[in-house]
């Protein structure tokens, strides 16, 4: 079906008549150009996925939103980044202060215990913000009228959650890595190489955290109708698993505990961390019942896959 360019409209959108005066050298002329069709390229689904990804990022960070919506995400980002930067700065300016003496800040593996907890709160905040407002305000109807499938929408939203949480965890790590390397006795480049050996373990543990904490938050946000309630439900559920596992006797081989232990998602990233950093197990949920660490990794992946399947089934009817 072809579309022809329409002649210039002479009625303004509000109904007022536009003035079109004859052109002359010393007089301005007002032209109502009317409607200009789009004749450029269309980027299809890839363009839509990219747009949803960046829209989600702006939304959860409160960018181009009112000031109040920026407070919580940036407070958490500050809580993650500022201490790391502060400790690194101290090592440069305070004589006798070494990173190794700065508790978890001097050891990437230990630092995960602090940044992981903050990441859980970050995920609790952003996963509901990514999904719930679109349902609450009927915006899914707009997505459904665009060249977008349910899988595209969910993929883009999931990618936003994954990427932002990964950055949330990795930026403080990067600050510490650069700081430690800069203080290395053999110089900065040698420090980068020496401490760079831990990068695969840091990336793997970060992925375990993001999936183990992100997938359940995404799952809760699929069903709860208000973002604040979803945040509360998620945090409550995660801490419930902590309590359940804490109440579990150590070195038990009872079947009921062996079945319950994989539910302790809160602890699994730490199990994976010990595995990847080749540390002595610290009696996390799986260690207590004698299950190997790969069970934690498999459980995290299984929860993530199950969340993806449930999300698709739930959103398919909207698209």
């Amino acid at each position: 079906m072809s579309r022809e360019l329409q002649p210039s409209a002479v009625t303004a959108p509000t109904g007022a008549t536009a003035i079109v005066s004859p052109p002359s050298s010393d007089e301005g002329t007002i032209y109502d150009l009317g409607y200009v069709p789009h004749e450029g390229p269309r980027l299809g689904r890839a363009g839509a996925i990219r747009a949803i990804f960046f829209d989600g990022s702006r939304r959860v960070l409160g960018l181009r939103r009112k000031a109040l919506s920026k407070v919580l995400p940036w407070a958490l980002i500050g809580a993650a980044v500022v201490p790391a930067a502060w400790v690194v700065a101290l090592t440069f300016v305070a004589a006798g202060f070494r990173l190794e003496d700065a508790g978890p800040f001097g050891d990437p593996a230990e630092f995960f215990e602090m940044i992981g907890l903050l990441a859980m709160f970050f995920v609790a905040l952003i996963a509901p913000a990514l999904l719930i407002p679109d349902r609450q305000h009927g915006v899914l109807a707009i997505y459904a009228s665009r060249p977008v499938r349910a899988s595209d929408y969910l993929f883009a939203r999931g990618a936003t959650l994954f990427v932002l949480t990964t950055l949330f965890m990795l930026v403080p790590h990067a600050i510490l890595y650069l700081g430690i390397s800069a203080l290395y006795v053999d110089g900065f480049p040698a420090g980068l190489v020496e401490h760079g050996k831990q990068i695969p373990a840091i990336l793997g543990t970060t992925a375990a955290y993001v999936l183990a904490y992100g997938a359940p938050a995404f799952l809760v946000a699929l069903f709860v109708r208000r973002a604040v309630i979803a945040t509360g439900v998620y945090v409550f559920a995660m801490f419930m698993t902590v309590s359940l596992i804490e109440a579990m006797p150590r070195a038990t081989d009872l079947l009921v505990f062996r079945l319950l232990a994989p539910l302790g998602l809160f602890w699994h990233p730490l199990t994976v961390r010990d595995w990847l950093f080749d540390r002595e197990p610290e009696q996390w949920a799986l260690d207590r019942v004698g299950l190997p660490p790969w069970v934690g990794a498999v459980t995290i992946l299984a929860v993530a896959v199950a969340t993806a399947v449930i999300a698709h089934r739930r959103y398919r009817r909207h698209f």
Partner: protein
Amino acid sequence: MATPLIELDGLTQAYGRLVVLEGLTATIPQASIGLVGANGAGKSTLMKTLLGILKPTAGTARVLGLSVSDETIAMRERVGYMPERGGLPPDQTAADFMIYAAQLAGIPPRAARQRASDVLTLVGLHEERFRHLGDFSTGMLQRALLAQAIVHDPDLVLLDEPLAGLDPEGRDQMLRLIGRLRGFGIHTLVSSHVLTDIESTCDWIVMIEGGRIVQNGSLESITSGNTVDVEVLDHADAVEQLLRERGATVLRRDHLLEVTTTVDPYDLINGVLAETGAGLRLLKARVRTLEDAYLGEGRIAS
């Protein structure tokens, strides 16, 4: 011949055992279409089916020549939709949401910014473009919804009750905006309960009743009828008798006759008057509004 805007072939839509649309078959040309029907007649279900949100239980539907089931993505690039309720995030500015709505349809970022600015000007919201949508009035929200529906330059836009909740001034503005779309090469399918609004913006009518199409034709063909009012000066009895003999239906009140016929009523009356020698005082076509037609079809359907 131009591609029909919409083609339905035995389209059936059912939720479990509840059949909402039953065997719809119709060819709708490129026009401004009015979708008319009572609450629960199946209008919104038909719109969702045309958007590819609902998969047909049976039959097929094509929009702009593209199958809604098999070519959904390609079809949606050329279609816009204005939902009846919701659809706008209150925490975003009008400009930001229009840019996003354009990008969702695959328009590149720079072009999306230009188009967002253009359509907001078009719907009279340019001055309000940096206000959050949550601060908009009902009329402004409806115009913003219309803007997002056309921001990606569709060939067809589906408007689900676009005048709902508007005051008279808002209705007037919205009707004029919808009327302008045709001039831009954008066809419209408007669903509304207010038949006078449909009459003023549409030139093709699809009437749905109980999940079935009871009328599908041009507004002119639906509203024009072969009924005329005739007032004669004398010989009213003879005129009435002769008209009845020639197959016309006649309702008479004194010298005034309401004549309905299947042939051209003017030729018929001309001949009868000539034969009877009756003097003519008044001859007037009976104008049928869309509401008359709708109520008539409603009676037939029920």
